[in-house]
Every structure is written in structure tokens, then in C-alpha cells.
């Protein structure tokens, strides 16, 4: 089309919209192209967001009408599960219901993304839904726009922000990013289970719109490198299960079977009992970490969010890194607008911003984490069995002395894993996250 823009953004996810809001605030002419019928239509996540990071883009977000919060999170639980048992650790703090409210909260992404995109639209960004970007337009080696799937569908812009999510065909086709390797992504399935708000309040011991998140490790994915989550929404529970894609193709396990088994686990079943399944979706997660990140800028383009492989797996932070990177990309563009220079050199300021922020610092800190889990399948199979054995021994009261029980547990650990291997596992685990 004839009209040109300062910035064209591909993807109306958290990354793209955060950039659009920041750019529109600065009066920069921005278009966001989204393939979904509306922003959020194609998006899925366990649905946890972080107030501080959203506040960097929309300072007064809680006061904006229609802010689609599900529950304010006051307790974080971590479970380590075997097939029939589990350990639960939780941290609840009244500060998260008071002074630090909305530190962490749940949202439904379909609703949130739509609302978030509305804020960008109100500030003047043009959001074009139901339109696929097929390719980048390049002239003399620099990106000058995007080609969409509609008639008269080329959009020319001074700079393009690629924020099209984890399976970024655009960046791959353009050669800006290698194709995704199965071991660098997780396949996650999510089920939303409807329950009355009062029942959720009761089952999780919360009230007044507060809620609980649970991260689940161990034998949740049939021995694959996988994790589960269970989050409380207003009137539903999100249950998600993800495992390494390479493991899926090796084991031929079906995600749907896994989540069905997961729902029957004695720790999970009572929390979702009587609930009705509302939706079932599947999506990838970029789990490869720091070492799988592509170069995030070049002549006329920047990459943000999942498309840049920005994901902090142990802290399940993805959407916030997407938001912050989107904002930093926008800030970089705002500066470049002053000189009119959109070359790689000028846009490299983006990398500096990312490096100075928690984004790259956290990505570096956990760079070994994905590989550590992938290479240590005992965490998902042998160890949960040992834990279950130990729990049963210690907590079954019978004629045996506690010392006998302790010896039995140690013997089991020796036999199934070996002490040196156990120590090595702990050590590499520590090194992966230190």
C-alpha cells in the first residue's frame, strides 16, 4: 500500500505491543501486523504476569478500565512429584496481598493481549489483525518493510521489529536466526478447567481475588525433561505441561495422554475435581537459553521476545522479558529516529540496553539450565522414585527403627543412582544456575 510507516511490527504479543505502546507514546507512526483474528487469538501461556515489568510500559496499568487481572498471586508453591506421591513447598506472604499487590498476577492471554493492544491503539498505533506477514522486504541488504498476505499488502517502514514469537519463520527465512532445533524448544499443552470462584478460594485457602501458583517438577512428563504448572484464575484453573520437543519425538509420548495422567495425580486431582474443561491448546516455549539466541539487530530490523529466544525457564519468565525487550527495542528506535540512522551500527544500542538489564544478565545466569535438565533425565525418573521410596519409608510407622529406615533409603539411593552420581548431579545443578 502507498502509506508508509516509521515502524512496522510483526506480532501483537507482549513484545510487539509493548514496543507499539512505547513508540506511540513518542508520537512515532507505528503499525502492528497480527495474523490472529484479534491480538491474543493465537496466544497461550500459563498466564502469569509481573507488575513491575508491565509498569515499565504502562505505569498505571491497574487503573486502566478493563484491566483483565484474574488473580493476584500471594503464594508460590513448588512440587516435586513421583508417579504416586509428591513433596510440596510453598511461600505465602501478606506483603503480596498488600503493599506489593500485583507483583505477580494471572491473566488469560486471549483477554489480556486484546486489552493490551487496545492501549496501543488508543495511543495511536495502528493494529492490523487477521493478516499474516509472509516475508520481509529487503533492499540492498537492509530491511525496509514487510510483505503481507493481502492484496496490495506491502508495508514500507524505516525499521521493522520482528516479534512473531518462538516459531519465527520470518527470522529463519531471512537467515537472521537458525531454524529451531527440537532440543531447544519445549512443547507445552494447556488445559483450562472451569471451577466456581468460591471453590477455588476454598481449595487454595485464599480470598479477595488472591490466588496461588504452583510449579511442578519431577515425574510429570513420563520421564521426559518436562515441567508442569497449575495456576489459579478467577473462575478456572490453568494446568499446563511442557516437555522438550526432542524428547517428545524420541519417546513418541502424546501430550494429551500426559496431561490426562497428570490430572489424575493425587496432588492434582482434588484441586480440579468437578471442574469442566474449557479449552485445550498447545504451544512452543523457547528453552534453549542464552546460547541459542540469534543476533538481535541488523540493518533496518530488531528482534524481541520469544522470537529472540528470550525465556527464563527456571523462573517461567517469558512474557515479561518479551515486554521489556519490546520496550528496549522501541527506545532504541526512538533514539535512531533523531539521527535517521537505522543501520546495524545505530541499532546495536539495543544490545547494550539488553546487556545492562536483567534480561541478558538472567539469560546468562541460567545459560546452562536447559542443557542441565536435558542431560540429566534421572531428575524426571530415578530421583522421583527414590524420593517416593524415602517418603514412604520415613512416614510409615512400623516395627522398624528410624535408623533401619534411613539405611534402607541410602541403600536405595546407592543402588539406583550411586552417591557420586548424585553429588555430581547436585553440583552441576548448582553450577547451571549459580
Amino acid at each position: 500500500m502507498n502509506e508508509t510507516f516509521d515502524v512496522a511490527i510483526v506480532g501483537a504479543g507482549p513484545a510487539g505491543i509493548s514496543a507499539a505502546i512505547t513508540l506511540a507514546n513518542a508520537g512515532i507512526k507505528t503499525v502492528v501486523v497480527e495474523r490472529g483474528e484479534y491480538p491474543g487469538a493465537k496466544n497461550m501461556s500459563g498466564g502469569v504476569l509481573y507488575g513491575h515489568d508491565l509498569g515499565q510500559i504502562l505505569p498505571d496499568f491497574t487503573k486502566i478500565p478493563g484491566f483483565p487481572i484474574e488473580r493476584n498471586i500471594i503464594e508460590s508453591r513448588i512440587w516435586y512429584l513421583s508417579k504416586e506421591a509428591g513433596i510440596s513447598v510453598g511461600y505465602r506472604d501478606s506483603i503480596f496481598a498488600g503493599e506489593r499487590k500485583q507483583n505477580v498476577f494471572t491473566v488469560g492471554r486471549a483477554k489480556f493481549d486484546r486489552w493490551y493492544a487496545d492501549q496501543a491503539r488508543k495511543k495511536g498505533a495502528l493494529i492490523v489483525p487477521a493478516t499474516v506477514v509472509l516475508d520481509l522486504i529487503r533492499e540492498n541488504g537492509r530491511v525496509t518493510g514487510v510483505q503481507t498476505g493481502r492484496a496490495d499488502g506491502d508495508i514500507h517502514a524505516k525499521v521493522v521489529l520482528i516479534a512473531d514469537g518462538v516459531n519465527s519463520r520470518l527470522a529463519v527465512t531471512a537467515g537472521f536466526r537458525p531454524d529451531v532445533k527440537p532440543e531447544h524448544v519445549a512443547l507445552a499443552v494447556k488445559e483450562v478447567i472451569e471451577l466456581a470462584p468460591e471453590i477455588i478460594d476454598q481449595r487454595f485457602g485464599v480470598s479477595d481475588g488472591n490466588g496461588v501458583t504452583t510449579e511442578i517438577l519431577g515425574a510429570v512428563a513420563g520421564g521426559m525433561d518436562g515441567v508442569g504448572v497449575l495456576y489459579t484464575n478467577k473462575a478456572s484453573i490453568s494446568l499446563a505441561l511442557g516437555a522438550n520437543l526432542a524428547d517428545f519425538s524420541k519417546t513418541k509420548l502424546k501430550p494429551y495422554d500426559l496431561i490426562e495422567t497428570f490430572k489424575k495425580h493425587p496432588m492434582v486431582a482434588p484441586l480440579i475435581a468437578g471442574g469442566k474443561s474449557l479449552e485445550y491448546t498447545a504451544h512452543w516455549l523457547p528453552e534453549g537459553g542464552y546460547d541459542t539466541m540469534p543476533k538481535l539487530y541488523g540493518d533496518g530490523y530488531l528482534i524481541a521476545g520469544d522470537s529472540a529466544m528470550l525465556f527464563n525457564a527456571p523462573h517461567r519468565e517469558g512474557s515479561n522479558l518479551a515486554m521489556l525487550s519490546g520496550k528496549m527495542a522501541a527506545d532504541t528506535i526512538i533514539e535512531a529516529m533523531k539521527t535517521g540512522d537505522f543501520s546495524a551500527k545505530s541499532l546495536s544500542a539495543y544490545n547494550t540496553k539488553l546487556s545492562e538489564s536483567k534480561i541478558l544478565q538472567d539469560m546468562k545466569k541460567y545459560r546452562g539450565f536447559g542443557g542441565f535438565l536435558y542431560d540429566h533425565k534421572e531428575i524426571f525418573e530415578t530421583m522421583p522414585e527414590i524420593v517416593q521410596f524415602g517418603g514412604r519409608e520415613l512416614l510409615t510407622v512400623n516395627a522398624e527403627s528410624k535408623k533401619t529406615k534411613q539405611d534402607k533409603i541410602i541403600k536405595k539411593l546407592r543402588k539406583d543412582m550411586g552417591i557420586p552420581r548424585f553429588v555430581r548431579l547436585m553440583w552441576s545443578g548448582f553450577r547451571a544456575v549459580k
Partner: protein
Amino acid sequence: MITIVLRGIFCKLHIVCCIKQVPDTTQVKIDPQTNTLIRTGVESICNPYDIVAVEAAVKLAEKNGGKVTVITMGPPQADSALRDCLAVGANEAILLSDRAFAGADTLATSYTLSQAVKKISATEQVDIVICGKQAIDGDTAQVGPGLATRLGFEQITYISEVISASKDKIRVKREVDGGSEIIETKYPVLMTVELELGLPRYASLPELVRSVRQEVKVWGAVDIGANIEQLGLKGSPTSVKEIFAPKTRTGGAVIDAQGNGVNQFLDTFFQKEPEVVKEIWGGGA
């Protein structure tokens, strides 16, 4: 008078399409307590018959010169259904939204729409009103005919083809039981359309962008000069007695016509249904 004279010279058609936003499924859930449809959680779309109506209107306007205005009565979210129509090529969109409109049955709906069409017609005379033949969430097919009656327009329902149109008359094909008829009529006319009329076009990027940007007017009860008593729940004499899902039918028996199947079937049938035997053979058999 003046408008009629002008129209004679420029031969421009003004077409109004009445559209409705509906849940994107024919399997909406029903609240067992209130017997009303539960719409939350179900995506909303423009009623498929209505978008066909808009496409037909746009084609007419393109061929003969003219303008297409789309209207809908609905909550503020219905804005997105109107934008879908703008993307297909409608020129203007008006959302009739007011708390007073809520809970309307087909009688109150046709009243509200007729008030809006009258208001539109006061500034730009309306020649044709096009509606989908029915909404997929109600299937009553009453609003179009009700609207025609209120406006005093000719009405032609179930149109499957527009054969020709000129500055003062239109010739169309309509589907009837066992065949079709060809009808010609003068304006003003209200037509309801079948899906056969043709799928909506896939908007070009500039058209889509226009649909996103364009202003959608919002009119309330006061704007259309409506009598409050005839609006919404108040103006709706229809009450839903019961909503139920039709029983699923079990499949019929398959009779093996090659062997002895037919005889066997008749034997068991007459055993099970003595009344039928009586009826066929008379009481004395």
C-alpha cells in the same frame, strides 16, 4: 421531491445492511436456571448470512454507483462485527447501542432497526435494505420481514441471486420450496439473502486498514427518536417457555434385502406393533 429528482440524475443507490454479531458456534450453551444462552467465553463473529448481505450490497453499489451503510443493534463489542463489514467494502457503520435496547425479541429489534433506517433515510434516502435470511443463534428469520412491514417496503426473502438492478427497480431470484422464482420490484425494497449469493471478499490491506481506522457512529434510543415502551425487554412480548436440546436419534435398523431379512423384519414388526396390523387388516383379522 428534491432527493427523488437528484436520484433520477445520478442514479445512486443507497443500501442499508442490518447485521448481527453472533457467537461463533451453533452449539452455544444454555443456562439451565434462566434458560438463556450463555455467550461468555464464546468468540463473536458477524452472522455469516449478514456478511453475505453486505457483500451483495457492496457489489450492487459498485455496479450501479451508490453507498452501503451497515447498522447493528448490540453491545459496544459489536463494533468489531461492523468493522468486518467495513473491510468487505461498506462505506459507513452505525452501532445502535443503549441499555434500553437490551433483551429485545424480534418485535422490539425490528422496531429499533426501523427507527434507525428512518433516521438514515431522512438525510440520505434508503432504496434497499438487505438482511441475512436469519441469524445462526436464533434461526427465527423474523427480523427482516418485520422490518419491511414497519418501513412499508416491498419485501423479498430468501434471495439466492441478484439478476439485474437499475436506478428504480431490481430483479432477483428467490428460493422457494421445490424451486425458485424470479421477481422484479421497485424500490424501496427489503431483501433477505441466502448464502448462495456469494462469499464475502478477502479485503485488501488498504481496505482492512480503512476498516480499522474508520469511525463507527453510535446511536442510542434518543438519537433514533424511539418510544421507550417499544424497546428492549419492555417492548418484547415473546417469552421463552423452555429451551432444550433436541433428542439425538438412534440410527435405524439395516435390513438385509438379499436373504430372508425382509421377511424377518416384517414378522418382528407385526409382533411388536399389533395396532399397525389391526389398521392394515381391519379389526377382524
